[in-house]
Each structure stands twice: as structure tokens, then as C-alpha cells.
């Protein structure tokens, strides 16, 4: 656990920790701006920017016209002119209108200009399901971003990381896609406000000897629950929280897998062509001779995100992760991939 009790630590929800991170950044650095749809008076549909406009003024924290390409495109222009925009996309699937600005410019301008234009822009995206949201409100869009060189992609699993990672993202000289697991917005945890693990490093949330479960964002809590349940089956599960999806921390992940000899990658997004495929490939390439079983994935099905009353059948849960751990060749039984 990274959350330690220090004199400064406080118990906060993830949403409140993110709010504090923006408030502290706005207070410390006059070039930081926060803008997007409904982020001003309303404080965002999830209230993550609550109170910031009142405290810092509408020249620093403001509502924009309702246009995502416009938000990201103007943020690029502002960053070219020395400011540090932190913009909010209201929901995962509503960031898609900004895709061209993100992939063609935000990700590429530093490279295109040989380092002359750096774009310190943070794009906050509430993502993922589990909140009973209707269509277009529950996508896990991380693979679109991690597949784009030039972007840094991070996602917190705890309130403490939410604070720290957002501060680091705002301080980064490069554009950061900051994915906020919306189903964990209201989960509380200790927040220390102090520098800890660097933004590009994974952390071991729970040590274990038998199998490494690799998770991030909303699935970190699910992986930890699974680890508790697994003790009944006699498995000692190690949980790695990636935190940074791009860059990927091969070192921490592979060191864990070499110790345990088994690995399962968990995410909400569809599996095919998904982020877990990259993790499985990298771990296999680097740890092959330490593996007792193939690296398996537990992901959402390869379907458009389901309606609220069916989402429980889509999202990875403790049982599905335990079933997958059970298939990791514990008694020399050959692991079968289900299906053809």
C-alpha cells in the first residue's frame, strides 16, 4: 500500500483527491487552467471540479462551448502559448470528437517540431462502467490512446494515486491522457499529498507468492478483492497496479511475474486488440522461462458496452478472475484457451 499515515494524510474520496490536486496546481502555478463542459459553476457532472471556479476565478476555471475537438484544439493553442491546460472530457465516449486533435496534433507536435513545441496538456477522461450508465457513458477507451506514440496514459486505482498522478500529470512537459475510473470516484482512502512512486512506475498493491494479477484503474479494487477470496483456495495472489499504461513498467511487472511464475491481466475493455494483449505479449517475451502457464486475460467481452441491466455479465469480477487463476496449470493440466 502506498497510503501511509503521516501527519498530513487525510481520508478522501477519489473525486475529492482529484479536486485537491487541481486546486493545489492552480494555486502553485499561475499558468495552469481548468476548462471543459460544465466544469465551472456546476463543478462537473461528477463534481470533480467543484468550487474551483469560485476560488480561482472564471479566467482560470471556465465552461467552454460544447465541442470536444474545440476544447482539445484550443488547449493545444494555449499550450503553444505557454499555458498548462487541464481539460475535462465529460465521459469516455464523448472524447471521440477530439480524437483527431489528440492523435494528429497533441501526440505529435513535439516530434514534428523536433522538440520546439512541447504541449503540457492534461486531458481528464472519466472512463469505464459499473455505474449503471446508459449507452456511450461506460467505454474503456485506453487502447486508443496507448496505441498513440507521444501520449502518456495514466490511471489511478486509489485516491492517493489520484492526487499524486494528477499533480505529476499537470507538471509533465508532455500531454497526458488521465483516465479516471468513474466507478471509484466515491471510494475513500488515505491521501498523503507527498511525492511517492514516479508517475511511470507500477506498484505492488499486495504481495503474494503464487500468481501475479496485473490490473489498473477500476480493476485494482476488484483484483484486491480477488486476492482476499483466493486465500480460501490456497493461492497467494500478488496484485500489481500499473498506474501508468504508457509508458508500461516492464521492470516492476516482469520482476513480479518472474517471482510468481504465473500472470493474469485484468481489464474492463474488450479483450481483442486490447491493452491486455500488449501486457501478455510483453510479459511472455521477457519471462517465458519463468512461466508455468500462459499469461491469461480477463476482460470484457468483444461487444459494444452493454445496457445497465446486463453490464454485470460483461465486467470482469472476482469469480471470473478466480476461475482464470484456476486454469493456470496448477497440476500439470494443459491450459486450454476456451473457444476454437
Amino acid at each position: 500500500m502506498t497510503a501511509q499515515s503521516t501527519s498530513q494524510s487525510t481520508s478522501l474520496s477519489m473525486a475529492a483527491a482529484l479536486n485537491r490536486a487541481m486546486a493545489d496546481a492552480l494555486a502553485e502555478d499561475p499558468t495552469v487552467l481548468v476548462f471543459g463542459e460544465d466544469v465551472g459553476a456546476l463543478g462537473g457532472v461528477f463534481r470533480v471540479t467543484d468550487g474551483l471556479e469560485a476560488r480561482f476565478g472564471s479566467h482560470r476555471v471556465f465552461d467552454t462551448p460544447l465541442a470536444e475537438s474545440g476544447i482539445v484544439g484550443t488547449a493545444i493553442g494555449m499550450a503553444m502559448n505557454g499555458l498548462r491546460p487541464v481539460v475535462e472530457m465529460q465521459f469516455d465516449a464523448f472524447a471521440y470528437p477530439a480524437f483527431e486533435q489528440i492523435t494528429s496534433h497533441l501526440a505529435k507536435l513535439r516530434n514534428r517540431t523536433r522538440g520546439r513545441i512541447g504541449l503540457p496538456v492534461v486531458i481528464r477522461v472519466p472512463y469505464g462502467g459499473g455505474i449503471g450508465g446508459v449507452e456511450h457513458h461506460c467505454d474503456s477507451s485506453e487502447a486508443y490512446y496507448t496505441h498513440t506514440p507521444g501520449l502518456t496514459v495514466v490511471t489511478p486505482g486509489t485516491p492517493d494515486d489520484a492526487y499524486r498522478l494528477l499533480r505529476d500529470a499537470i507538471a509533465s512537459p508532455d500531454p497526458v491522457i488521465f483516465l479516471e475510473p468513474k466507478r471509484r470516484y466515491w471510494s475513500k482512502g488515505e491521501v498523503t499529498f507527498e511525492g511517492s512512486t514516479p508517475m511511470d512506475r507500477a506498484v505492488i498493491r499486495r504481495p503474494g507468492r503464487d500468481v501475479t494479477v496485473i490490473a489498473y484503474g477500476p480493476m485494482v479494487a476488484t483484483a484486491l478483492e480477488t486476492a482476499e477470496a483466493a486465500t480460501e483456495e490456497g493461492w497467494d495472489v500478488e496484485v500489481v497496479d500499473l498506474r501508468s499504461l504508457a509508458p508500461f513498467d516492464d521492470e516492476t511487472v516482469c520482476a513480479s511475474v518472474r517471482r510468481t511464475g504465473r500472470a493474469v491481466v485484468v481489464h474492463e475493455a474488450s479483450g481483442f486488440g486490447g491493452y491486455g494483449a500488449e501486457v501478455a505479449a510483453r510479459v511472455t517475451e521477457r519471462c517465458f522461462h519463468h512461466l508455468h502457464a500462459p499469461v491469461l486475460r480477463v476482460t470484457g467481452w468483444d461487444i459494444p458496452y452493454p445496457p445497465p441491466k446486463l453490464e454485470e455479465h460483461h465486467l470482469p469480477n472476482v469469480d471470473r478472475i478466480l476461475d482464470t487463476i484456476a486454469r493456470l496449470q496448477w497440476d500439470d493440466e494443459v491450459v486450454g484457451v476456451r473457444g476454437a
Partner: protein
Amino acid sequence: MVPTRELLPTAEPLSLLRKDGSPVEDSPLAMPDDDVLLELHRRMVVGRRFDTQATALTKQGRLAVYPSSRGQEACEVGAVLALREQDWLFPTYRDCVALVTRGVDSAETLTLLQGGWHLGYDPYVHRVGPQCTPLATNTLHAVGFAHAARLKGEDTAALVLVGDGATSEGDTHEALNFAGVWKAPVVFLVQNNGYAISVPMSKQNAAPSLAHKGIGYGVPSVLVDGNDVAAVYAVVKEAVEAGGPTLIEALTYRIEAHTNADDATRYRTSDEVAAWLDRDPVDRIEAYLTARGLLTPERRAAVAAEAEEFAAGVRAALNTDHEHDPMSLFEHVYATPTRHLREQAALLAEELA
């Protein structure tokens, strides 16, 4: 101060010079000073020579491709010279003449098209954003840049260049709307050169003019004769001084094909091209300045000689082979190369060893 600015453009394009170079007596625009007019002429002649030189270099394989702006010099030069030093230009692939007019080194201007890198110049030196290829995306960069200047208390305007086709892209409309709401000091100059590659205006737009689109966003709009350099200069200057957003549609024509790789005979007639050659923007300002006795034979010859010298410089720079360091591929993807990219750079270095 600036009078109340109209949201709707005039029915007829504003102009200062007729096609034959005679002045328009009752124009609402202010005729630029004589020294400005001479400078506009000089830069147009040099710009055109640069353009024909660049097209020639495609034939010799020295440029991968070149989108000519022949016929559009009044827009490229008039707009850029109307900017103040502190203002920024956000150009497209079509606007190399605007870049060299702004002072960007000609070889650095052509780096993108020559293929050595995606951009050759430092945007901060001459206050010129990277030439933009994804259509209309630069409009939003200009709005963000200008709005940031406002927030910082700086008096900086942004001039963004777009084509007629690019006005159909969503980003143009988002940018006009943002600029209207924020009252950002941005001049949108649409060079309506008649075609988006092969697609004519009739298939692009149903409004009375492209300038009419400003009214829906509360952005004052101007329709101007884009082959009249004095008029383009006057309207851009006025727009910059006005401080808020302005949409300007300049009516002009692309004399060459879309690029050297395009075959324009498939979609337009030579009669149409001939009619526009008759409205040539360089001839027009030359006729006016000659009639006024400002453009003497000596000055004319000196400008022509300067243009030749400029072209020779372009040839010399482009005919030199440069080394392209493969290891530079990894250098600027991030401010500090990631572990992952350092590993890949090492693999490429091994391949090259």
C-alpha cells in the same frame, strides 16, 4: 477607433484595384501607403518566383510534392504583411509563400515537402505555427493561442489560413464559435481558390458566400477580392486592429493543379483557367504602381533580379544532400525518451552498426 463591424459581408467583394489596375474610387477600404504597396509588389514577385522554383524542384525529384499557390499571391503576401511583429500565423500546406514572406528560411520552409523531417523551422522564431495538413485543425490552435495571449494580457492576434474545402470541416465551425464566444483576436482568412482538390464550390457550400458563415457565430465577416493585394492587406490589417475575431473570404483561384501530382484537366476547363490568368494579382498591382509612376523600370528590374537571386538560393539549398540521422527518430517523441524508446533506439543502432 473601429466603427461597428458588420456581421454580414457585402454582396460584392470589397476591392481597391480593378482587374486592369485602375483604382476603385468609392471603396470603403483605405488604400495602403505607397511604400507598403511597393513592398507588397516586391514580395509577390519574389513569392511567385519561389513558387515556380519549388514546382520545378518536384520535376527534378528534389521535392516529394509541392502544392502551388500560384494565383493566390495577393492573399499569401497581403495577409502576412498586414500582421504586426508580435502576431502569429497559422498556415496550411498551401502557404509556403506566406511563410517565406514572413521571413522563414526558404529551405526550412520546404523541409516538410523535401521529406527530411515533418517541419524545418522553429515556430517561435518568426511566430509561425507548423504548416497544417489535417484540414481546419489549425483554426482551433489559432483560437487557443490568441485566447491565451488575452489571458496573459498580451496584445497578440492570430491569423489562420484555411481553404474553401476546409470550411466544411467541423473544426472550422467549432473555432468560429469559440472565437465568437471568447471574442478572441483571430483573423480567419479563407482563400477560396475555387476547388478542394477536384471538388468545386458548388458541391461544398449552399450559403450565399463562405463569409456568410460568420453571422451564425457572431463573427464579423468580410468578402474581399483575393486577387487585389491592396484590398487583402487593408481588410486583414483592419481585422487585426479590431481586436476580436473576423472571418474573411478572399475570392481567388488556384492556377496550378492541387499539387504537381494532380491532373486538373479532369475537373476544370482551360477556358476557366485562362479567365483567371487574365485577373492576375501581380499584373494588377504592377499596372497600378506603373501608372502612378511608383514602379519605375529600374525598380522593376531590381525586384526581378532579387527574385532570381532568391530562386538561386532555393536551388542551391535544395540541391545539397543532407544526412538524416536515423537515431533522431526517437529523440523528440517525449521530452525525455522513455525506457521503452531507449530500448528501441538501441535495437536500431545495432541494426545500423
